[in-house]
C-alpha cells in the first residue's frame, strides 16, 4: 500500500507560473539601474546618496506603517524600493535629505498605505510624492545643477544652476547650449533619473524583454506626444527637430516607461491602456504648451491615474461569443415561430 498521508486536496489549477510580485519589482529595479549609473556619471556620487536616502525612507515608512497599524509586513515585495527609486529619479540631485524623506513619507503613507497598500493606491506613489514636493518647495524642486559639476555628498551647496532643455522649449526655442547627443546621454540639467534618454530606453527594453510591461502604454504615450509636437511645432529648426527635443527632454521617457506603466494606477484592459497612454500624451503636451509649468508629465499621469476607473468602464473587452441583444432577441423570436 502507498503512503497517502501527506496528500493535499485543492482546487485546480494545480500548477502556477514562477512569476511573483517580488520578481516583477526586482525586474523594475534592474530596469532602473542604467539610469542610475548615468546619473552617477553625470551628477557624481551625490546621485547615489539621494537614491539611497529615498529608498531607505520609503522602506522604513512602509515598515513603520505596517507595525503601527498591525498589518502584515509588506516590504518584502520590494514595491517600496521601486517607489523610493522612482521618487529619487524625479528629484533634482541637489534635493536636501529632509525634503526627500518628506516626499517618501507622503508617497508611502498618504498615497499608498492609507488607501490599502500595494495594489490599492489609485495614484502612482512616487509621482504623488513628487507633486507634493513641487507644491511645497517650488524653489528647491527647480534648482538644477549643471552636469559634471562637483557636488557635496550631503547638505546644500551653492551650485551652478543651469536652465533645462525644457525651459528653453517652453519659450519656443530649441536649446542652444546642448546637443541632441547630450540629451541622449544625459549631459544636461534636470531631475536625477530623467536626464539620460538612452539609459531609460535600455531599461525599458529590459522590461519589455521580461514582459513586465507591454508596449501599449509607452508607445501610445510617446507616440501621442510625438504626433502632437510634430503637427504643432514651434521654433525655427523644423518640425522633426522640435519633436525630437520634446521627446528627449524632461521626464517624458521616465514617465512613459516607468511611471505610467505602474500596474496599480493604470488600466488592466488592453484597449484601456492605449486610451490611457493617449490621454497622458495629450495632457503632457497641453501642459507643456499652455501651462504655467515647463514640465507636464507628472500632472498628466496623475490626472490620468484618476480616470483609470472610467477608462476601464468604457474599455471592457468584448467577451468571447458575445451576441448583441438585438440579434439575440431576433433569434428568440424566430425560434419561437418555428
Amino acid at each position, binding site marked *: 500500500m502507498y503512503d497517502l498521508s*501527506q496528500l493535499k*486536496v485543492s482546487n485546480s489549477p*494545480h500548477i502556477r507560473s514562477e*512569476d511573483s510580485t517580488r520578481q516583477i519589482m526586482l525586474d523594475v529595479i534592474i530596469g532602473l539601474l542604467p539610469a542610475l549609473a548615468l546619473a552617477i556619471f553625470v551628477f557624481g556620487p551625490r546621485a547615489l546618496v539621494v537614491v539611497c536616502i529615498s529608498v531607505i525612507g520609503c522602506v522604513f515608512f512602509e515598515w513603520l506603517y505596517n507595525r503601527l497599524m498591525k498589518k502584515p509586513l509588506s516590504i518584502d515585495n520590494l514595491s517600496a524600493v521601486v517607489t523610493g527609486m522612482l521618487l529619487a529619479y524625479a528629484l533634482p540631485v541637489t534635493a536636501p535629505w529632509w525634503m526627500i524623506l518628506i516626499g517618501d513619507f507622503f508617497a508611502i503613507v498618504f498615497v499608498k498605505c492609507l488607501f490599502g497598500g*500595494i495594489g490599492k493606491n489609485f495614484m502612482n506613489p512616487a509621482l504623488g510624492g513628487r507633486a507634493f514636493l513641487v507644491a511645497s518647495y517650488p524653489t528647491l524642486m527647480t534648482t538644477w545643477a549643471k552636469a559634471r559639476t562637483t557636488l557635496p555628498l550631503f547638505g546644500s551647496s551653492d551650485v551652478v544652476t543651469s536652465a533645462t532643455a525644457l525651459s528653453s522649449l517652453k519659450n519656443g526655442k530649441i536649446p542652444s547650449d546642448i546637443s541632441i547627443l547630450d540629451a541622449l546621454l544625459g549631459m544636461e540639467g534636470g531631475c536625477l533619473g530623467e536626464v539620460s534618454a538612452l539609459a531609460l530606453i535600455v531599461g525599458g527594453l529590459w522590461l519589455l524583454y521580461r514582459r513586465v510591461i507591454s508596449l501599449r502604454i509607452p508607445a501610445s504615450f510617446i507616440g501621442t506626444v510625438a504626433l502632437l509636437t510634430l503637427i504643432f511645432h514651434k521654433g525655427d529648426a523644423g518640425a522633426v527637430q522640435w519633436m525630437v527635443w520634446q521627446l528627449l527632454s524632461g521626464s517624458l521617457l521616465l514617465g512613459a516607461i516607468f511611471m505610467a506603466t505602474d500596474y496599480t494606477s493604470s488600466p488592466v484592459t488592453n484597449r484601456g491602456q492605449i486610451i490611457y497612454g493617449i490621454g497622458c500624451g495629450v495632457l503632457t503636451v497641453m501642459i507643456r504648451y499652455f501651462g504655467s509649468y515647463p514640465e507636464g508629465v507628472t500632472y498628466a499621469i496623475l490626472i490620468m491615474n484618476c480616470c483609470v476607473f472610467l477608462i476601464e468602464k468604457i474599455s471592457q473587452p468584448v467577451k468571447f*461569443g458575445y451576441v448583441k441583444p438585438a440579434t439575440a432577441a431576433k433569434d428568440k423570436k424566430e425560434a419561437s415561430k418555428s
Partner: protein
Amino acid sequence: MAHTFKGGIHPDDKKRATSGKAIELLPAPAQVVLPMSMHIGKPCEPIVQVGDHVYLGQKIADSQAPVSSPIHASVSGTVVKIEPRPYSFGTEIMSVVIENDFRDEPDPSIHPLDIDAMTTEEIVVAIREAGIVGHGGATFPTSVKISSGLGKVDKVIINGSECEPYVTSDHRIMLEYPWEVVGGGKLLAKIFNVPEVMLGVEMNKQDAFPKLREYLPEDGTVKLYPLVTKYPQGSEKHIIKALTGREVPSGKLPADAGAAVFNTDTAAAIYRLFTTGMPVIRRIVTVSGSAVSNPKNLECRIGTLMENLIDACGGFIEPPKKLIMGGPMMGMPQYRLDIPVMKGTNGFLAFCKDECVTAEHPACIRCGKCVGSCPMNLLPTYIYQCSEKGEIADLEYYNALDCIQCGACTYVCPAKLPLMQGILVAKQRVMDARRKK
C-alpha cells in the same frame, strides 16, 4: 501557418516524460469496478445481477434518459458485487464489480458494422449503444452530440490539441494508431455529410504529422491543421475559433455555431466500433508527475483501479503530496487510489510537491496578466474581487458565467491570488440567484 485564438498561456508542457514512450498494455486486473456514471447526464442503472456471468463488451448498465451512455463489461467473468464505491468525483457511486475469469470471451452479439448499409438514425443508435462519450475528459455522450448537431453542423473537428501539460495519451494514439483517428474522421464526415473533417493538432506533436498524413484520404475528407501550442487550445470553443473563426455564442452549444468537436480518442473509438463492433472497454491513460518512478502511457481496461496503474509504473519515488485525475490545469484532485479508470480518464498525475502556492495575504497588483490570458476576454481579477461580497449585478456585469474554468488566470497571477476558487464561488452565486428568480 498554425491556427490559434486570442489569449491563453504557455506553461511548460512537461510532456517529455511520456511523449516518447510507446503505449504499454496493462494486463486486465482480477477485478474491475465500473461506476454507473462515467459521462455527463443521467447515471445508468445496472441491468445485471450479482452472480451473473458477463461477456467482454456485454452491456451491463443503461438508462432511458435522453442524455446518458450505457456501460459495458470490460472483462469477461462474474458480477460479484453491486454496491457504492469511491470514484474520482470525491464521493461514492453505485458500481458494478466484475471478477475477471481471464478468458476475455467477447459478447457473441458483437460484430463489425457496415456504415453504408445503415441509416443515420441507426448509426446514432449504434454509437449510443457502444457507450462512446467525449474521451477528452468532458464525457458528453457522443450520440447526443451527433444527433443534436445533424443538419446544423457544417464544420466537424477532431480535437488533437491535448493542451494540458503532462498528458500524452492522445499524442500516443495519433503516433501509434493514426489510421484509427483518420478512419474515425472519415466516418464522421459520412455521418454529418460534410466534405471535410478538420483534424487540429498542436505543433508540439509534430512527430505525429507524417504518420497521420500517411493515412489522410486523397479526396480530402480529413485534413490536418496545425495548431499553436498554447493552453487552452483544446477547449471546444477555442479550437472552433482557431479553425473556423466562429465564436460559439455565449451560453450556447457548439452546434449553434455550426460546429461539432470530437476528441482524438473518441474518433478512434468510433472507428473501432465500426471495424470490430467492440464498445468502449479500454482507454489509454498517461501516468506521470514528479512522484511517479517510471511515467508511462498505459492501455488499460475501464474499471482498473489507479493502484494497479501506479504499480505498473513502479510505484512512487516518495509519498505524493498531490494526486490529480486528468491534467494539472483542470484535473480533479484525488485523495485515494482505489478509484477506477473511467471513460474520460486521460491522465493520472502524482506530484512530490504541491506546486499550488497561494499567497498568505493575497494582494492584487492589477498587473492585468489575468486579463491578457483569459481566453473568454473576461476580467478575472474583478470577478474575483466581487465574488464574495459583490452584488450579483456586478458579477453579471463582469460575465462571471462565461468563465470556462480553464485556470489560465490563476496560473499566470504573480500575486498568487486564488482567482479560480473565487470565480467558482461567483458562478455559483449567480446561478443560485438566477434559479430563485
